[in-house]
């Protein structure tokens, strides 16, 4: 064969190898903004994602091995703790805040209702060590994992040796958390030109843009900021929100704006889960004046008909593909079958 032809074939093969996304590469939805997570420090690897997935569903992370991350973050409810106002910990301990849905985490710079956590890689340490949640300590978890042949094998496959260190442990969980991308709702199909809103959904969308979008900004449906929404402080919880972190009066009773994606499945609502139904939330906002973190004063007025139309639009944010994504579900084969063989 002509040398020139061989050269071009090789060039084409190399180009495809470099241009085509790897199996486990993070693919940003076209209509989403730039991500905040630094992927360079933690390049995706399917073996590391596998570890993260196993750990997420494994109660080994809690002190008495009774609860896992998934206990409060179920994949079938957008990784929220449906029907539970406050998070549950080991020994029936009750936390102080609602376990939020987990999705599109690569776009967040801080985590938790008060933004106490400043990087996704260290997020898992908070529930892991919280007395009201898993009540473990990092050293003990790493000891347990380093005693497990199952995990040592997984880490060896992913990292080349079987040492389970803090950074490998946390970066693996992070890789799995980053897989939780919800961008396949009807809203997304409309944005991508593959579907159209019904008339009612369209009306609801206009109402949303007029009244809600300042805080629940598209396409993540959160402005990622801390806002106060005139909810009275629960005297039993006495939760002052973001002010606990910054100790600035301006952050008093400000909480991170939750996404509205998959809202059907993430009830109860608000930072303390005080509202069980979406209707209650809309009722709270039907005649309200709010001061946003940008010092904008906004007035919201929603009559009953508008609330119905708005609800129709909010339902277009439900993402069934995300909820039933098999790669995010409990890893039966890994945790049940392989583990038995290994332990």
């Amino acid at each position, binding site marked *: 064969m002509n040398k020139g032809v061989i050269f071009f074939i090789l060039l084409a093969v190399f180009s495809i190898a470099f241009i085509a996304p790897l199996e486990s590469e993070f693919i940003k939805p076209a209509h989403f903004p730039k991500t905040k997570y*630094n992927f360079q*420090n*933690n390049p995706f690897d399917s073996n590391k994602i596998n570890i993260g997935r196993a750990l997420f569903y494994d109660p080994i992370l809690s002190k008495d091995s009774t609860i896992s991350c998934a206990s409060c973050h179920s994949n079938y409810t957008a990784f929220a703790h449906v029907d539970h106002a406050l998070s549950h910990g080991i020994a029936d301990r009750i936390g102080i805040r609602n376990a939020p849905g987990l999705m599109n985490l690569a776009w967040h710079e801080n985590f938790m209702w008060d933004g*106490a*956590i*400043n*990087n*996704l*890689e*260290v997020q898992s*340490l*908070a529930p*892991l*060590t*919280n007395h009201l949640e898993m009540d473990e300590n*990092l*050293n003990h978890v*790493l000891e347990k994992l380093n005693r497990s042949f199952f995990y040592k094998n997984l880490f060896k496959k992913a990292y080349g040796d079987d040492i389970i*260190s*803090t*950074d490998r442990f*946390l*970066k693996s969980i*992070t890789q799995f958390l980053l897989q939780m991308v919800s961008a396949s709702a009807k809203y997304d199909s409309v944005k991508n030109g593959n579907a159209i809103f019904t008339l009612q959904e369209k009306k609801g969308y206009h109402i949303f843009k007029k009244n809600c979008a300042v805080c629940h900004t598209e396409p993540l449906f959160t402005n990622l900021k801390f806002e106060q929404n005139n909810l009275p402080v629960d005297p039993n919880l006495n939760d002052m929100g973001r002010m606990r*972190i*910054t*100790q*600035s009066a301006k952050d008093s009773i400000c909480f991170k704006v939750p996404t509205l994606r998959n809202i059907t499945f993430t009830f109860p609502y608000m930072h303390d889960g005080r509202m069980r139904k979406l209707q209650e939330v809309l009722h709270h906002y039907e005649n309200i004046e709010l001061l946003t973190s940008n010092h904008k004063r906004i007035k919201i007025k929603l009559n009953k008909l508008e609330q119905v139309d708005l609800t129709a639009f909010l339902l277009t944010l439900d993402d069934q593909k995300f909820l039933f994504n098999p790669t995010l579900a409990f890893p039966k084969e890994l945790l049940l079958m392989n583990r038995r063989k290994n332990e």
Partner: protein
Amino acid sequence: MNIGMCFKRIILVFLCCTSLYSNAVAQSQKVTFFLQTDFDQLYLNDSVKISKCAIYLTNFKFYNQSELVFEDANQAHLVDLLDPSPIQFNIPVNLVYNRVVFNIGVDSNTNVAGILTGDLDPREGMYWAWQSGYINFKLEGILNAKVQQAFQYHIGGYAGKLNAIQTNAFEVYPNNKYTLSFNFMPMLQYALAQKQFEIMSPQLKAVQLAKLLSENTTCTKVQNLSNE
């Protein structure tokens, strides 16, 4: 070129590299910082017993006037001040410097950088999991009064007005050894006078204590010791 010739050239390049490396190592000067505290003074009248004292010393930089000439590759040194090991730097022999600058505590960029290793591994116990951030230093102990009173100061915070990191600068010169003295007495007296026995989170009082420690940190040249 035959294989034998290739092999010879590889050996030659390897030898040259080894020689260059050896020269570089041989031509470095060591600057050593011994670390000490004023706990001996605290113990004199048996009024205070320190049970824990750990500190992050970070971002050591050496300057000649205002020009940065050498930067510590090891970003952070976590030191147990109850049993401190000296901190030593190998600086190229041709470099001239007259000032060292370092931080007591971990800077904000490092605090938000995600999970880190070595001395910055959260396993070291100097990390707040509930509110991401490093504890710049810990001082724990018991005050022996009529009623024993425990005290715990976990001083940290990196953001805005709660940033407790402190920068210290001292005059230093090549081929010398120095003692960095961390004098906790003023800080401790200040806190105890206010009946402030616990600080366990980022707050303005923590910043105040960090400043007091920084202001009472000194660097003195070690006399009558031959250089290595």
